[in-house]
């Protein structure tokens, strides 16, 4: 199954993503040092507001900050240390949760983001593509017009705003679902049936707001792709041969899926960004919420740490999509590309 051309394709993608990751972490490194006005100095001065009235904490945080950013050493040494640390998973010490390590604070919140993001993205992708293909198959019927128009509008609704509407309607007005968090306050996450039901109730609204507002985009893209495919030579030829519509449609659908898989990879970052903000609206204890807290307390080691991890996960997800793509596309699997 894993043929040589496929392996070569994946290796090329892996090297590209690695280079991209190094470039991105370099940007993360350069930014605080390159932006005019010296944010590092500002950070130190604003620390007194963050670590309230505890002079010892301020001094400790100051030392941490100086050490984390290593500002006393030459820039190249700082850069080398930064990269090595990032690769080792050592992201430094948090300022607002001093003396806890950034990595220890990030790891527990990641599952919450993944539980929300992965199923929502996949469900939206599958539903959207199915709807879009259906619309193209029934082109110019009321199904097509309905799907297209509603997708155009729905795809422009920001996830977090849809979340707000849901909270207001189903949480506040109707009182059907809990209005915030990932589980009821006071309960401790455990593997019991009761906790599962409770978490599920909290899950419905953030999940639905991401699914509904991302679905439309996929539907629009898929519809255009299938319309293109159905108008191409092989589809027309099959039609002249007397092949059944359903069968031609099946071919067109399969050919249209490939660009949608690439689209999935390209959209991961946007979806992630939207999900982070959705978490803030729902007070959902994921990475977005942690990032929001880090931003409001100017906890720069934490902000940097979250970025290094988020960017790495987007690239990792990209690689997984590449793998899928290589596996599905016979041109890559059999080495006919290039």
């Amino acid at each position: 199954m894993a043929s040589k051309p496929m392996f070569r394709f994946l290796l090329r993608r892996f090297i590209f993503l690695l280079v991209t990751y190094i470039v991105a972490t370099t940007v993360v490194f350069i930014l605080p040092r390159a932006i005019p006005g010296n944010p590092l100095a500002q950070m130190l001065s604003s620390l007194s507001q963050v670590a309230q009235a505890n002079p010892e904490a301020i001094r400790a945080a100051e030392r941490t900050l100086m050490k984390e950013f290593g500002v006393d050493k030459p820039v190249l040494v700082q850069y080398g240390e930064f990269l090595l640390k990032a690769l080792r998973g050592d992201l430094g010490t948090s300022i607002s949760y001093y003396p806890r390590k950034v990595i220890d604070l990030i790891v527990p919140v990641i599952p919450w983001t993944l539980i929300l993001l992965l199923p929502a993205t996949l469900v939206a992708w599958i539903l959207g593509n199915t709807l879009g293909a259906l619309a193209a198959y029934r082109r110019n019927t009321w199904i097509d017009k309905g799907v297209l128009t509603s997708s155009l509008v729905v795809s422009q609704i920001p996830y977090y705003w849809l979340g707000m509407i849901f909270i207001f309607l189903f949480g506040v007005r109707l009182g059907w679902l809990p209005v915030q968090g990932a589980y009821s306050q006071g309960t401790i996450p455990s593997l019991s049936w009761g906790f599962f039901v409770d978490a599920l109730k909290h899950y419905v609204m953030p999940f639905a707001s991401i699914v509904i507002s991302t679905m439309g985009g996929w539907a629009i893209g898929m519809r255009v792709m299938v319309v293109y495919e159905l108008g191409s030579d092989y589809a027309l030829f099959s039609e002249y041969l007397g092949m059944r519509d359903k069968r031609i449609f099946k071919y067109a659908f399969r050919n249209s899926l490939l660009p949608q898989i690439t689209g999935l990879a390209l959209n991961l970052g946007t979806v992630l960004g939207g999900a982070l903000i959705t978490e803030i609206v729902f007070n959902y204890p994921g990475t977005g919420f942690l990032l929001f807290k880090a931003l409001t307390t100017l906890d720069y080691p934490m902000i940097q740490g979250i970025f290094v991890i988020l960017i790495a996960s987007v690239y990792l997800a990209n690689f997984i999509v590449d793998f899928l793509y290589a596996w599905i596309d016979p041109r890559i699997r059999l080495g006919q590309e290039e």
Partner: protein
Amino acid sequence: MFSTMIRPLFKNKKFIIGISIFLLFLLLGILGPTFYKVDPTEMTWDYEQPPSVEHPLGTDTYGRDILAQLLHGIRSSLYIGFLAATISLVLGTIVGSLSAVKRGIVDDTLMAMTNIVLTTPSILIAILIASYLRIRSMEAVAVILGLFQWPWFARAIRAQLMSVTSREYVYLSIMAGYSDLRLVIEDLLPTIATYAFMSFVLFINGGIMGEAGLSLIGLGPTRGISLGLMLQWAVLMEAVRRGLWWWFIPPGVAIVAITASLMVVSTTMDEVFNPRLREE
């Protein structure tokens, strides 16, 4: 030539609806604050009031008029959207056409750069940059957003120009001794004009949405009022969980109306101008 291009558009019902809604909001943004002369920052004792005759869209926690905020917000959000879109369009056109014309090492470097930016989640980088700026003007936010949404456009421009430059009519123009400038203006630009316009529209949406996202995470413009900032204030003051619907619904409706109407304009243009999508 221009009228034959434009006329089919105005026979399309969806296009007319889309462009009307967009123009309505554009007018609201441009003229609204001049006609509705209420100061959006003025605090009154009528706080958290539902819509009334005095305050058509109610007031917020500080007694500020929501309608006034909304009109100013539409203006700023459109401004940020247009500015970000212009930056993206210029960057994308430069990178894409340089790549296509120079080829070789220039092309390789530019495309490697493009792919890196394309793979990197732009909103994350925007959040990171914004977090280091203590004072963020509307323009700064637009620049941050505009810097990262050009890559797919650059790739499309490059692909289009590469396919065009190898067509016969371009060879003919070269053989006829046309100057590079005339070649670009007469033969190359028209082929990317509609695509560029459609992309510009999507870039505006990206700018408006991006501003809203940045603002909600607390990194929006530090001065003035935008639609995103209105939403952020509503979230901070728990307007949603306290049922103050007149506060958080209007800015969202404005964002969706502007971006969705632009989307409709862009897709209907695609349907009218793109022969592969045109209905027989």
